[in-house]
């Protein structure tokens, strides 16, 4: 089991993005949680929504399992509310999406200026995208090591409380 980074504590006025997760296994001091997800559109309970259920299949939820340390009282089946800082979500999104896009566009504009050919620009854009993804991986490692993206335990979930992107 690798060392897990400690989550950075939130300040008193800091907003947290909360979600409900269920304990699926306990391995010593580490509890593994699986996000509990209702309809994939938060708050959308329309039966006709095409996205309903897409985010709830077992394999997708299993892929999003995450560890939680420091709470030995947790048992399999417990439902808890976990949270990450709001700015952590922004940093994560910028790292995963904005960095590769900027690299892709930079390479594309450069190739168009130099070569002026659509095929070359396409190839350069793909190369830029791959380079950007490599940089994003490096950057994301830094965020994880600093504990910025580590979810923290907030409280036990109340009866009937469901996951919402609030």
């Amino acid at each position, binding site marked *: 089991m690798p060392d897990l980074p400690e989550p950075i504590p939130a300040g008193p006025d800091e907003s947290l993005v909360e979600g409900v997760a269920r304990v699926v296994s306990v391995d010593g001091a580490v509890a593994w949680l699986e996000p509990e997800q209702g309809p994939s559109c938060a708050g959308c309970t329309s039966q006709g929504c095409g996205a309903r259920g897409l*985010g709830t299949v077992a394999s997708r939820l299993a892929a999003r399992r995450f560890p939680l340390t420091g709470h030995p009282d947790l048992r399999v089946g417990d439902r808890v509310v976990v949270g990450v800082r709001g700015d952590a979500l922004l940093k*994560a999104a910028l790292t995963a*999406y904005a960095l590769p896009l900027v690299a892709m566009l930079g390479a594309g504009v450069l190739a168009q200026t130099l070569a002026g050919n659509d095929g070359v620009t396409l190839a350069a854009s793909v190369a830029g995208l791959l380079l950007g993804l490599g940089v994003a991986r490096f950057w994301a*490692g830094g965020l994880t090591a600093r504990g910025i993206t580590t979810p923290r335990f907030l409280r036990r979930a109340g009866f009937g409380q469901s996951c*919402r*992107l*609030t």
Partner: protein
Amino acid sequence: MQDYIYLMLSAALVNNVILARFLGLCSFMGVTTRVDTAVGMGLATTFVITVSSMLNWAVEAYLLKPYDLLYLRTVTFILVIAAAVQFTEMTVRKISPPLFQMLGIYLPLITTNCAVLGVALLLVEGKMGFLASVLFALASSLGYSLVMVLFAGLRERLALADVPPLFAGPPIGFIVASLLALAFMGFAGIGAH
């Protein structure tokens, strides 16, 4: 260069995907309860729209047109978009599992977001070159993200406002969205000569 700037301003503001073309309204109402989540959804959609538009342009130029398969355009684009979402999901999971735990929730929503297909079809209508297509897709999706964040900010304020019970919840949301659309109509004069 000036043409590219006009193209991007037009795509992002004048012909905004949500408020002028009325695409992507499900996520517009569903994921705008908080600014943080709206930013996450907006950036994820921006990434998918831009990458899938790049791929769709290549498929259109090198496969559908040369082999006279244009009648398969919509089906092919849907397939490419689904593949792009899957690629994004796999990539984010590979880049960083913690990021995937945080951002993975938005990706299934994008598969069924009609804005992604709408932008791809608009690109084909526009008969643009590769770079213009990518910039148009990027600007369209940035316009989508801008409206998502603006609307989320308004809804955060509305949550604290004393709204009459009859209008509380989605009704006041729709009213605010229509006012936002009216405000965006003010951009219609940009670029007029």
